[in-house]
């Protein structure tokens, strides 16, 4: 019975959100806030794998997001949109409902491969160098996109709205909300399963003492690579969702500012904590909305908050612990007694 608590709660939450959206109890503005919240959760938890669990300092998450965004969008528009981009459409509109998750996964895969290319040079280097490599990679990706006229270059790319419309033609529900929700659940499940397995615990071991890990039979290079690819792949999925929620993307959306947003969420929530990263993504999204009237001031207040955080509570909301560590009753409820940390 216990095993069904979490899935049941999740399904009810989804049902509630969809119902509220369709009956306009939740208006379009709040729907978009929820969608950005979901995207931020994916960004935050995926970056947490590298910056939190693995203890590295990756500053280029936006680059992987960009790869995912562009790959899914270009594929989608090429396949489904009328209007001659690469001579389309090739597939009928109703297939969007089934193909869309595949498009997202394609974006994620492309981002994961990019992650592989970025991580490889970092193996011979130590510590701070990953920061440099990821920053440079992020610029390279942005610059490359700007130079490819076929996808709009610096002017941006659009057409994703046609795919979202095609989905509502099949069944009139808020599809993007559904997809974002599904992706968030997918991300959380994947990350949790990774981190709680012995395979994933190796990541924590590498963070705490890489030399000991190496001597205790952990293939440190391989584990760093796998973790990095998982992290960047999930960021790519977030990017794809971002593209379709907005309906328009340009390289300017994927700058160091975006990477910084992701980092703020990770460090706010506590490194290595999935619940922490999730909570901080939620708080951060709401904070951005609340501070919106301040415009630029927003980006003075948020860094100052983080500076204060570093001074007084650098471990963030949860430190290295999860919600189940702080609220023991939750652990019993979910039947996770023996899940050693």
């Amino acid at each position, binding site marked *: 019975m216990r095993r069904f608590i979490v899935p049941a709660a999740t399904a009810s939450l989804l049902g509630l959100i969809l119902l509220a959206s369709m009956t306009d109890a939740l208006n379009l503005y709040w729907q978009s806030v929820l969608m950005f919240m979901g995207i931020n959760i994916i960004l935050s938890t995926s970056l947490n794998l590298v910056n939190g669990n693995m203890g590295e300092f990756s500053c280029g998450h936006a680059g992987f997001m960009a790869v995912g965004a562009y790959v899914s969008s270009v594929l989608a528009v090429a396949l489904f949109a009328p209007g001659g981009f690469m001579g389309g459409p090739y597939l009928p509109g109703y297939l969007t409902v089934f193909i869309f998750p595949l498009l997202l996964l394609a974006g994620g895969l492309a981002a994961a491969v990019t992650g592989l290319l970025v991580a490889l040079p970092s193996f011979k280097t130590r510590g701070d160098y990953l920061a440099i490599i990821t920053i440079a990679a992020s610029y390279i990706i942005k610059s490359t996109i700007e130079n490819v006229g076929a996808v709009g270059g610096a002017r941006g790319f659009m057409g994703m709205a046609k795919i979202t419309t095609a989905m509502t033609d099949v069944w009139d529900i808020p599809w993007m909300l559904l997809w974002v929700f599904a992706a968030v659940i997918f991300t959380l499940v994947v990350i949790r*399963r*990774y981190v709680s397995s012995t*395979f994933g615990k*190796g990541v924590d071991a590498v963070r705490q003492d890489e030399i000991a890990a190496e001597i*205790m039979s*952990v*293939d440190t290079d391989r584990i760093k690579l796998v973790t990095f690819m998982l992290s960047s792949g999930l960021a790519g999925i977030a990017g794809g969702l971002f593209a379709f929620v907005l309906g328009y993307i340009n390289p300017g959306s994927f700058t160091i500012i975006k990477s910084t947003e992701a980092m703020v969420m990770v460090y706010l929530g506590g490194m290595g904590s999935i619940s922490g990263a999730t909570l901080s993504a939620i708080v951060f999204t709401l904070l951005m909305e609340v501070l919106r009237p301040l415009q630029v001031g927003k980006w003075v207040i948020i860094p100052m908050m983080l500076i204060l955080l570093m001074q007084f509570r650098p471990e963030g909301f949860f430190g290295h612990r999860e919600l189940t560590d702080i609220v023991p009753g939750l652990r019993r409820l979910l039947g996770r007694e023996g899940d*050693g*940390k």
Partner: protein
Amino acid sequence: MALLEVVNLTRDFGGLRAVCEFETTFDGRELMGLIGPNGAGKTTVFNVVSGFYAPSAGQVRFQGKNTAGLKPHKVTALGIARTFQNIRLWFDLSVIDNIRVSQYYHLEYGLWDCFLRTERYKRREAAIEHNAQEILEALNLAEFAQELPKNLPYGLQRRVEIARALSVKPKLLMLDEPAAGLSSADVDDLIKLIGWIHKEFDLAIWMIEHQMDVVMKLCPRIQVIDFGRTIADGTPAQIQANPDVIKAYLGDDAI
């Protein structure tokens, strides 16, 4: 076939020759000591044999296989485990997780199994858990399974580190100054522990140590190195009487 053959091992760091033509052989179940003054090159020998450094000259063969160029985790998978002078446990992972992670070389499941929680994954995780529990019980550490090593007293931490090394099922266990930092009561426990491990498990033990009573009590054979070179090799009695050894440790001023 010998278990470990170190032939003519030399290791340079720039202009410094840390180890010079070092040789040793393990046939199977010896308990051998490696001693020498500070800076003699003992840990460097260990670092080469465990794969952190490549030899500048000479060879290291484990069960006939040349280990040059192998990364440390591969050398461990062949059957060599080691501990460190400073305890290198993962202090924020529970004791049992420390043991679990050391099973990496034979996880025998892939990422897909991990994500989908397949039968194979569940089986292997259960086996790893079982192995970890067994080792902890064998070394009287079962009650600390869920503890974080940083909360344990130093002597227990050392025991956990040895347990972790044993969980790799090594044929050769290399202990780098296991008695370092231990109180005299803990040292006695350590001597008993190492003796017991040597009897119970099918392995050879190679030990670097500074505390003479530990080495002399445990090791039937001791090698002494100084400035990277072997200066003596024999039983404890022979070593203690050897003038070169005395000179290395105490200097040769007439007292």
